[in-house]
């Protein structure tokens, strides 16, 4: 029987002085992942953009729980998005989109 895929949703903050598009952002994520883990690693990650608001510099991506640490590493290694200096910080991680936003709300309200 096929094993159920356990997913992880990551809320991300895009730290950059310039505006980047969602496509440019995902290209940078894929490119960083490919550089560090190759095509085989990238094929296991199941990366997908779930939500993004580039004006608020916020994005949500999805991955598989087994590759969460690899995704974190790849995101931390990003220094440029389309040749514009940038950094991506993980705000929070969760197993469902609903709990991700809940966590994010409590995190932001405590700040």
């Amino acid at each position, binding site marked *: 029987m096929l094993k159920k895929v356990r997913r992880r949703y990551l809320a991300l903050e895009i730290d950059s002085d310039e505006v980047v598009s969602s496509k440019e952002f995902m290209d940078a994520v894929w490119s960083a992942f490919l550089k560090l883990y190759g095509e085989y690693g990238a094929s296991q990650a199941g990366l997908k953009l779930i939500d993004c608001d580039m004006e608020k510099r916020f994005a949500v991506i999805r991955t598989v729980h087994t590759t969460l*640490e690899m995704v974190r590493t790849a*995101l931390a*290694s990003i*220094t440029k998005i389309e040749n514009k200096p*940038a*950094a991506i*910080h993980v705000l929070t991680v969760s197993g469902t989109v609903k709990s991700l936003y809940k966590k994010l709300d409590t995190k932001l309200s405590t700040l």
Partner: protein
Amino acid sequence: MKRIYADLHMCPNSKDSEQAERMIRKASELGYYLIAMSLPPNFTEEKIQRLQNICEEANVDFASRVDLKPRTSKELINSLRKLRRRFEVIAVMCESKHVARQAAKDRRVDLVNFPSTDFRKRFFDRAEAELASNSLASFEIDIKPLLTLEGQARIRLLSILRREAAAARDFRVPIVVSSGVSEELLMRKPRELTALASLFDLDKASAIEAVSKNPVAIVKRNREKLSPHFVAPGIRIVRGGKDC
């Protein structure tokens, strides 16, 4: 108890105080509680005090740090004699094997660091690790080159770091992971530094210790030693005067 995260190697331009201020605020936002900035040896007490005030405002603890780049082991000993009581953290950038060996065995050295782009000058082998294990020196790894280098250079650096981290682990030399950055956009959260440390096979627990327990222990130990009440490890003056 909440874990304290530290970045002992921030390198803003010492002439640009605004940049230092921005980096301190950023460090606070990213979740660091203790930071150390690489300062020139002739940095005055007033300037250090000014940085401490900015850190206080940003709710960050500040430790003064000096990076020594001696050419000979004799030069290293002389610098240590002059500077040990002025700075809370002393790091030695080892550019020759003699200096590396001297730094590893000298109990006044807190951190040994190696050039990240000149791979022939990375002398942290098993002999160096053995010497460091008998003294107080920790092995510092800067994350900046992992972010800035690309392709073959990064592959080579990762391979060397993996070997060095294994030597440090075998001889129980504490590893300190620092950012080593001079720009805000290259600063990373502690959790992100630990994720990057996995690239050179540091397990999760050791990586977390490398950004929290190990750097905090260095600063705590040195503050105790620099206190006027310190006599010897474990001995401090509790009360003074005629009635003692």
